Structures are given as structure tokens and as C-alpha cells.
């Protein structure tokens, strides 16, 4: 056994995609972990923006919610939620938006709203939150989601946040859309022409067959699938520190 899990690998792979200096909109869950991991490793100058209004937050510990006081207390500025969405997210000032998904389809459309019919759903999910406008306006969108046939579906029950549209051609938004989907199996990227999500990288120890089995549609596989390097010691140490909510200087 390695000393890291597939979830660790997913979060580390996501963190690596954040460049130093990027302005990153951070949501709850894995995005929060990945963004803070990036800031503690290779991207100390990435700018964390939380939809609660905190701009350039430098949390000392991993925040448990996007409204922790540590975010407001360490931010350069805290703005109102309307201002955050109008002047910062909507205006296209976010380089990278991390999003999660309850369902995602082959064209990167995301459902976080309902399983079943909207008026009388089988499962009521939390809803869209800040994601629709992040998905539309962020320079690039990175989706972090564990892969399974229930999650990676032929067609989402409800489009909460648009990827490339129902047939991959309908995206009408300023940002580039979901340029990377990072899972516990590997990484999917949209085909440059058709925008169909395509397996381009595999995490250590995962096979393309496993990724296909975890996908609810016939997943395209790139001609040359790259191997994602395993988490480094430094990455794992930073990840553990975050998980244990160890404090570092802001």
C-alpha cells in the first residue's frame, strides 16, 4: 500500500493545476483543500477568493466553511456577496474556478440540483450556489469529482452549470469552460474540436479500463495517456497539515 489514497491523489493533482499568481475562486470541499494545498506548496502567491466575499484570503488553517472568520480576518478585502458576483466573478476577474459535481456528462455539464424531475425530485441536492456564474465566467474551470457510473452519466438530469452544452457546441460564455476534470482515477480533458471529455492522464496504479468502468458513457481515451506523478513527500506533508488543521503563518 502506498501512504496516500486515491482521494489524496485527486486533491494533489488538482492543486498542481493552480499556477502561482492565479486568482482562484474556492468552494467548499475538495476545491478548498486543493487551493490551500497549492498555496502551501508550489503556488504561494496564488490569490484565494471565496464567494463569501473574502479577497486574497490567507487562511492559517484549512477553513471548515467558506465563511470562516479566518478568511475575513486574513483577507486583503471583504466585499458583499452582490459585489463579489457582479464585480469579481461576473466581470471575469477569476482565473480559475474549482467546481464539484453530483453528476457530470460527457460535455462537462454539471448537475448539483436534483436527481429525477425538478418539480418532484427523487433526490434533492443542495443546488447551484455560486457555480453557474463561476462555470461561465472563470478563465478556466477545474472540476474535481470522484469517478463512478452514477456520477459520470450520459446526460445530467438537470444542468446546474454549463460545460460545453448538450452536444458540446452550445457553450455561450466568456470563460474557456471545464478545461480539466480531475477524478480519483485520472484526468479528463475536452477534445479541442468536439469538447467531448477524454481521458488524458491516469493516476499511479489506475488503468484505463478502471476509468472506463467508472464512467457511465463510452469514455474516449487519448492516443497517448500520460502518467500522473505520485504525490511528493512535500505534497503529502502539506496535505496532512491541512487535514489536521495545523496552522501556518498567513
Amino acid at each position, binding site marked *: 500500500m502506498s501512504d496516500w489514497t486515491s482521494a489524496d491523489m485527486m486533491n494533489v493533482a488538482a492543486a498542481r493545476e493552480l499556477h502561482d499568481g492565479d486568482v482562484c475562486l474556492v468552494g467548499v470541499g475538495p476545491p478548498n483543500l486543493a487551493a490551500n494545498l497549492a498555496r502551501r506548496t508550489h503556488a504561494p502567491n496564488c490569490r484565494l477568493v471565496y464567494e463569501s466575499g473574502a479577497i486574497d484570503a490567507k487562511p492559517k488553517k484549512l477553513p471548515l466553511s467558506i465563511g470562516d472568520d479566518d478568511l475575513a480576518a486574513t483577507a486583503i478585502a471583504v466585499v458583499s456577496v452582490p459585489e463579489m458576483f457582479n464585480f469579481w466573478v461576473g466581470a471575469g476577474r477569476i482565473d480559475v474556478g474549482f467546481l464539484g459535481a453530483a453528476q457530470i456528462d460527457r460535455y462537462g455539464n454539471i448537475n448539483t440540483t436534483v436527481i429525477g424531475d425538478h418539480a418532484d425530485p427523487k433526490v434533492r441536492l443542495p443546488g447551484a*450556489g455560486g457555480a453557474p456564474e463561476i462555470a461561465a465566467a472563470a478563465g478556466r474551470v477545474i472540476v474535481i469529482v470522484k469517478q463512478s457510473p452514477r456520477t459520470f452519466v450520459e446526460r445530467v438530469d438537470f444542468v446546474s452549470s454549463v460545460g460545453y452544452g448538450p452536444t458540446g457546441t452550445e457553450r455561450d460564455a466568456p470563460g474557456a469552460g471545464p478545461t480539466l476534470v480531475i477524478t480519483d482515477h485520472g484526468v479528463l480533458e475536452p477534445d479541442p474540436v468536439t469538447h467531448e471529455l477524454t481521458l488524458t492522464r491516469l493516476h499511479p496504479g489506475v488503468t484505463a479500463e478502471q476509468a472506463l468502468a467508472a464512467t457511465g458513457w463510452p469514455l474516449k481515451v487519448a492516443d497517448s495517456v500520460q502518467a500522473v506523478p505520485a504525490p511528493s513527500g512535500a505534497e503529502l506533508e502539506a496535505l496532512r497539515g491541512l487535514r489536521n488543521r495545523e496552522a501556518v503563518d498567513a
Partner: protein
Amino acid sequence: MTSPVPLADAIAEHVHDGDTVALEGFTHLIPFAAAHEIARQGRRHLTLVRMTPDLVYDQLIGLGCADELVFSYGGNPGVGSLHRLRDAVENHWPHKLAVHEHSHAGLANAYSAGAARLPFAVLRGYRGTDLEEQRDIISRVTCPFTGEELAAVKAVNPDVTVIHAQLADRDGNVMLWGITGVQREAVLAAKRAVVTVEEVVDEFPEHTGAVILPNWVLSAVSVVPNGAWPSYAAGYSVRDNDFYQEWDAISRDREAFLAWAAANNLTQVANEQTAATHV
């Protein structure tokens, strides 16, 4: 409005059956104590508005206070589902809950339009999503200068908005700081506004990012220390993350939830509701 009043009086006077009620607070400063007083007084048929329903609306929904919900994200942040919200939507317990849902950007702008007494707001949003199918609250407008088509959201104007803040001064002006979310807009969008505060001071301190609301836009102020628990008030308390975790187990089960309600003096309402579900 000048002198603070007891919370029970403020709620009794300003929150009525059938009202559209917004209890706002983005993770921070959530007015739990006021919500519990609303439940305790047995308010019914409310339309609840809130960007992030959180535990506070999970409780009011489970207690049968609400007929409708206007929201943008209905989860227990970092924990999981709001089980009472889900039970109401999926199983109609204690009764059916009609849902009107926005994105955060949409609902924030709907409050802003309400605060400006405009009938709608324009934003870059919703394009390509199925949320647009709710045409009664989300539509489109065309820019008269460029011809570009943009999203429009219907204004939200609550009958009453309730918030929690850190401070009131002797004149009943209110100050809040830290993450102030959409509270200013929600108060200014409402016909009436009730504020619970941690304490009353002679003079406000300096706080970058503070929101100050003059007494003449407020209907009542009540002093309720720790009135945001299990949420928090920056400078006064920290978020009770353990309770947020515990709520998952309490709220998963109807009986556990009703026992929690009884133990917290929300029994009048809870009993009525149990009776109703057993008819």
C-alpha cells in the same frame, strides 16, 4: 425605532403568518435565536428566502413553518445534506415545500434590485442552465445599446428581513462586520427589518468592511447575546462546527428531530405537527 425590545415582542409584532421572510447571513451572523422565536410563536405558511438555507431553515422547514423556499444553495456546508429540507421536498413531510431556486449571483442581484425598489436586475448569469426554466423569476433582457441578451431576475422584497449583528448604539443604529454577505441588501429590500445584536455600545468602533444601518430603516432591535449560535459573530464567538456535524444525525431521522425540537422548547409547534402527520 430607538430602544431595544424583547425578541419575543419584535417577532410577534413584525413576523406574521403567510409573510415572505428572509433570515440572512452567509455562514456568519445567522440569526438562529430569532428563527427559533419564529418557530416558538408557531408562525405558518411562510415563504422563506435565503441564499444558503443552512441549518436554520432546515429547522423551520422541519417544524412546518414554511410553504415555500427561495434559495440558491441548500446544503450543510462541508457536512452534506439538509435532511429536513430534503424530506419536505422529496416526501412532503411535514408537508409539501414549493421551491424557487436561483444561483448565488441571481439571488444576490434579486435582493439588490429589491433594495433599489427596481422590479428586476440584470446580470451575466444562468446561460445554458436549466434554472432558466423558472421563467417567473429568471428571464432575459436585451441590451438597448449592443443588442446582447442578458439574464434578468425578478426582485425579491421580503415582508420582513431578520439579521443578527454585533452591535447597536444607543440610538438603535446597527453595525456588523466580518463576512457581511447580502445582509445590507436584504434589510433594504424588506418592508420591515428586525435585528438581533450581541450588545449595545455608546459608540461604534472602527472596522474596515463594516456595514452600518441607520435606525430609520429598522423596525426593531433586540439584544440577544450569542443569538447566532451555532453560527458565529466575529469578535464574539466561533462557529460551533461540532453542532453542524451533530445536526446531520439529528435531522436524518424525523423522531430524533422532533425530540430535539421538544428539548429546545419548540414543542408547541412540533406537537401540532406530529398530530397533523398522524391524522
